[in-house]
């Protein structure tokens, strides 16, 4: 971490911001501030160089064209890749996951190169996966919403984030991918709002030490309600 404030990069919100994705930046900043750690959100816009000095990079969801545009821009201005090489934290959701991989095929059939930070490749599936998702991993279950056509295959260079208990995820019973401090999931939009354990895992990588407890009762109540809803939907 450099300087005094944690710098959170919201990467290309103009094209990768379809599903309230700026929420993840707001959650990380607020969880740092509540713990007395200064933090700021830096918007990285299309058409501008990508800074390599930020502490966290967040990539959100987007539609096919927007996603291809984002990948092309990030490859042309490789600040994010340089940051990742020195251990900066990178978090991608949905289209963000696909962009971080080695390649992705959009619904028209065109293959685009990704950033190669995760050993995953994505092609269109048979039908859109839409709905509540529950993912089991080594902390409290992840709850979120997915909406994607892509099916993602992992190579040996990445491991899945977790196992899908409800919903679709990568398409093979797993969800997401992790390589070092690069982590991605199909749980889209403001997934960190519902999953403080995931938010704090990212922050522990940023800070180099696990952050302290931070009880937010509203989040606990929402989690219980959403996990119950996902369970009910499965048995319906």
């Amino acid at each position, binding site marked *: 971490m450099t300087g005094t404030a944690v710098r959170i990069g919201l990467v290309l*919100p103009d*094209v990768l911001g379809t*599903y309230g994705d*700026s*929420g993840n930046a707001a959650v990380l900043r607020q969880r740092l501030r509540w713990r007395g750690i200064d933090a700021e959100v830096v918007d990285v816009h299309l058409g501008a160089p990508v800074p390599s000095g930020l502490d966290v990079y967040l990539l959100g969801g987007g539609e096919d064209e927007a996603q291809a*545009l984002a990948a092309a821009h990030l490859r042309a201005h490789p600040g994010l890749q340089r940051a990742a090489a020195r251990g900066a934290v990178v978090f991608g959701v949905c289209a963000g996951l696909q962009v971080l991989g080695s390649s992705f095929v959009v619904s028209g059939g065109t293959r685009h190169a990704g950033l190669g930070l995760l050993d995953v490749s994505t092609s269109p599936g048979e039908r859109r996966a839409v709905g509540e998702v529950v993912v089991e991993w080594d902390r409290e279950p992840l709850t979120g919403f997915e909406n994607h056509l892509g099916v993602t295959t992992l190579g040996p260079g990445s491991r899945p984030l977790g196992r899908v208990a409800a919903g679709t995820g990568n398409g093979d019973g797993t969800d997401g991918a992790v390589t070092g401090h690069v982590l991605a999931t199909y749980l889209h939009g403001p997934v960190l*709002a519902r999953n403080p354990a995931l938010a704090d895992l990212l922050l522990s990588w940023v800070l180099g030490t696990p952050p302290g407890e931070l009880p937010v009762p509203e989040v606990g109540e*929402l989690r219980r309600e959403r996990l119950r809803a996902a369970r009910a939907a499965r048995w319906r």
Partner: protein
Amino acid sequence: MSLSAPPELGAPHAAPPRRLPWRTSAAAALARLVAAGSRRLGTGAGGVAGGRFALRLDPRALARLGRARTVVLVTGTNGKTTTTAMLSRVLGVLGEVAVNGDGANLPDGVTAALAARPRVPLAVLEVDEFHVPAVAAAVRPVCLVLLNLTRDQLDRVGEVRAVERALRKAVAELPGTTVVANCDDPLVVSVGLAASSAVWVAAGQTWHADATACARCGEPLRHEGADWSCRCGLTRPEPAWVLEDETAVLGDGVRVPLGLGLPGRANAANAALALATAATLGVPPRLAAERLSTITEVGGRYRRVEVHGRTVRLLLAKNPAGWRETLPMLEPGAPIVLAVNGREADGRDLSWLWDVPFGQLAGRTVVVSGERALDLAVRLTYAEVPHTVRPDPLDAISAAGPGPVELVANYTAFRDVSRRLAGRHG
């Protein structure tokens, strides 16, 4: 469009419909019967069911009921119901108007509205964005009003850009249709440019997040003041009408004050588009504006009702663009109830809550409500807006403290509250 020489008032569009084939007449009669029966039983949804029966009896009923008259279709993500109400009020000066004022904007609801009044010469119909291609191909509208295109219910209906492509294709196949559209919305412009004739209205836009990349080529759009353009050539067209605050300014400099009875910038934009549409049909803008000023509520929206001894104003906001327009309308100092559901009709994915600048509510009394009150609670907690949680909206109104209360609800939450408060007055 030449504004200096409007067509004669009422002509040539208000010709009475031709005789209908017996099958269509029977289908229309059936639709009216079902609607009347359902009204007597108080179930309410009869219009739509009637339309569905009619289409089953005569699959061409929509085309046959619509084509013989002058039809205006209204579509877009936000403002359809309000703009339809405005246009039907204004076009009333030309003749009787069939209208789906209940917001039933799928083909069955549209058919029901036409069947209810088979002999009136004019129709103003709001149509769901996804159903415009089918409805427009059937009724061949004289005007298509295109308000805006932004994200709405993403989990249910997919991508706004796919909607844009479908509309563009539909419009290109309607040679007799004039598109009246907001030139400040790049997605809308991409559709309108495919039309054989278009009237552009600079109605403004506060939500840009869905149109940063060009609809035609995917490259980033360049903005310069009100103008925007893309390398591929897609450019903001020159407007014939410009909305300046609450005044519509015509190309020749004539200023028409709107004097609306409805609040908010978005309604001024709707009004400007309604005025421009009415003008293409021959209604002078000043006369149109006069009629608009008499509208103070639309389908229960903006209505004030009395609940537990306090006045509540009911506001509807369905998606981030709608919420963004609604928050600044809230009466300063009044306690606020926010009610959100996440049913099929609302969209089950509430990620969009994070696209709404709820931080603006800091310092106000806020109660969160609805079936997804907890999603709102987490959103407001992270925005550092203190609030209480009362899942039942009427409880929430009671808990909101003394004085007039502002209630903002999304689609089914608004509908449920409206039903429970039906018959009460402010």
